[in-house]
């Protein structure tokens, strides 16, 4: 029971650290408007050194390394101000799917540029009628010679407004049960007939989009996997998604402790309020539990094992905690808590931001409810959901809103 690196791990960490110190120093921190440019240049730098996708084979531009090395580099990188989110979905989910199902020429064309941050990818799965129930999607693709003609709508597509390519799941057969009539393609997001409209989120930002397809032609050569066999391809993506969705960001017990020291409650500072202290302890226990659960995951990786189901609990805990803790801080600020101007708020409005972002975190990448189903079924071995739509043809399924 310790936190020590093996000698090889320590060596890798030292080398990564030395590389980071040298290269972060040479990396220009750019003003916020040029965040993307800074992200691209940092990604290119990492790619050149084999630190972009450490577990990918060298022949595809990766580091040819192990999962534990990837974790170690991530730990060290997190100590520097070079965290950018633009490439996570592409490199974590889309490109691995392309690598698993595309032909060699396609892979040669796309993997390198994605790795170097030159091209960005999006995941076009969700639709107005198909979120948790991904297989319920209705966007239709009809064969026309060497092409497929696509009509329909995708929604909640993160980053589509700055992306170049995407992987898209479409319906190619309505006469069979829903899982059996789907096909996956990769596509150029600037193809004629595609319209990308940013969606205004409740948090105020616009990080995701709706995408309309009007007679968009996708060549059959861009198909990933067999016709009507797209569900199998999508499962590969979704599996990678579960690995990629990380832990908590933003407000943590440490920040709320700092707030509580400076904030007055009814009887002296908030930190002296017994009820608040009890809640603070519970948040700390959860945050520590999550941190230490990651240590157990890393241990499994370090031993060359596949991490166990314990890593599946991260998002449920982190997203709920962020919501709870953020709200407690906002409530503690009293009337003042309704303000949303970062300039006027403690910690630049960190807690207000947490409250407004948390709902999305509890939904994206699998809702709380779906994740609990997964724990119940895959970890505990309880029966699957009753599937009234299992054998019916897709065209006969009842539709709600």
């Amino acid at each position: 029971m310790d936190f020590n690196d093996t000698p090889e791990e320590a060596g890798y960490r030292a080398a990564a650290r030395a590389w980071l110190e040298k290269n972060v120093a040479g990396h220009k921190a750019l003003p916020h408007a040029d965040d993307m440019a800074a992200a691209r240049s940092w990604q290119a730098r990492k790619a050149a050194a084999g630190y972009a996708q450490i577990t990918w084979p060298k022949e595809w531009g990766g580091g040819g390394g192990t999962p534990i090395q990837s974790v170690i580099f991530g730990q060290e990188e997190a100590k520097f101000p070079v965290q950018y989110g633009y490439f996570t979905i592409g490199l974590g989910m889309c490109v691995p799917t392309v690598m698993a199902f595309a032909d060699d020429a396609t892979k040669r064309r796309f993997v390198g540029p994605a790795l170097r941050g030159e091209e960005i990818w999006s995941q076009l799965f969700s639709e107005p009628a198909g979120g948790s129930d991904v297989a319920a999607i209705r966007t239709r693709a009809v064969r026309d010679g060497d092409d497929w003609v696509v009509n329909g709508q995708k929604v909640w597509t993160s980053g589509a407004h700055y992306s170049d390519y995407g992987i898209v799941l479409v319906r190619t057969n309505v006469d069979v049960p829903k899982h059996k009539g789907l096909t996956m393609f990769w596509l150029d997001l600037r193809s004629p007939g595609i319209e990308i409209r940013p969606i205004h989120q409740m948090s105020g930002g616009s990080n995701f989009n709706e995408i309309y397809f009007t007679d968009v032609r996708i060549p059959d050569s861009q198909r990933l996997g067999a016709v009507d066999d797209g569900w199998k391809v999508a499962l590969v993506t979704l599996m990678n998604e579960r690995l990629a969705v990380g832990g908590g960001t933003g407000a943590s017990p440490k920040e709320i402790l700092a707030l509580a020291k400076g904030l007055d409650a009814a009887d002296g500072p908030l930190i002296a309020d017994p009820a608040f202290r009890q809640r603070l302890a519970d948040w700390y226990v959860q945050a520590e539990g999550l941190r230490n659960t990651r240590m157990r995951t890393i241990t499994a990786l370090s031993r060359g094992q596949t991490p166990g189901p314990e890593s599946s609990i991260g998002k449920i805990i982190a997203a709920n905690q962020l919501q709870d803790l953020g709200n407690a801080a906002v409530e503690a600020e009293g009337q003042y808590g309704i303000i949303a101007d970062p300039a006027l708020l403690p910690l630049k409005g960190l807690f207000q931001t947490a409250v407004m972002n948390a709902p999305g975190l509890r939904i994206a990448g699998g809702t709380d409810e779906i994740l609990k189903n997964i724990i119940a079924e895959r970890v505990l071995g309880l029966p699957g959901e009753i599937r009234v739509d299992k054998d019916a043809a897709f065209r006969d399924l009842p539709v709600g809103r």
Partner: protein
Amino acid sequence: MNFDYSDDQKMLKDEARRFLAAKCDAKVVRGVLDQDDCAYDAALWRAVAAQGWLGTAIPENYGGLGLGHVELCALAEELGRACAPIPFASTVYFVAEALMLFGSEAQKAKWLPRIAAGEAIGAFATSERAGPVTQASLHTVATGGTLSGEKIPVTDGDVADLIVVLAKDGMYLVEKGAGVSAEVLRTLDPTRSAAKLVFDRAPVERLGGDDGIVAMQAVFDRAAVLLAFEQLGGADRCLEMAKDYALERFAFGRAIAGYQAIKHKLADIYVKNEIARSNAYYGAWALNSAAPELPLAAATARVAASEAFWFASKENIQTHGGIGFTWEADPQLYYRRSRQLSLVAGAPATWRERLVSQLEMRNAA
């Protein structure tokens, strides 16, 4: 990174599980529950002593096995899983740890070998009234080598050969005998016994320095980690029982395990148990490596484990429906034990308070 049991520790743990499955099934636990005058299962106590478990973390020169505290944690997890009705925690986590922390050479040489051999049962007597134990709550005093006062409740106080008593000006060792009388109490968990102890000029020896509350807390910090593993073992067993039952019980034409209200309940138990496990491991690391983080790690482990075991034990009963509320069904054993373990070293609220004060100290430093 090695934040898990080692292979050897896993082997020890597996062996312990097999051993307890054979020697401590629910019938053994019920044997103690159903007999009013039975404080613990003597046969199990002897068997556990013969395995050497009582001396797991006691150095070899005091008759122990000289293994580490992580090994003791592994055994604690299995004892909790089996709901073992023996005075293991009082003797090993509290009294042996108190002796190792504060005992003189002579005290250690006299008592640790007897504890390791299963010849001496220990009890840790701190509480005198409802609420947390503070300096103001203490009325027991020692003068001229004897101690007088009352302690209630004292887990295993009725069967203890050696009692560590917290008095106003420090901790003391008291042997069963003249000046010590015990009155057995009814408790929420009759599979573990408890007594009111009355000391009337009982001969005592000093254990450690002047500040008894600080000494008690040091023992509690160590016990909290070990108890967290017992709680974790119990919580895991509750999840397993709930799952097994849910798969077998049918309602409305299917196993209740298929209903989301039950599935999500069990998923919630699982999540709490994993959080408790991860925090318990951190506590084990801090205890075993004598890390300065121990007080914070112990409080974290204890709060997480108390919450997990309580939740798992109550929702296990709920999952069992009516049968879960009967004397004959086993869920009650764990429900009772979860109350015992959550309170025996101070209630969760007290530990939350300690956790936050530790956090404040660390952030100020």
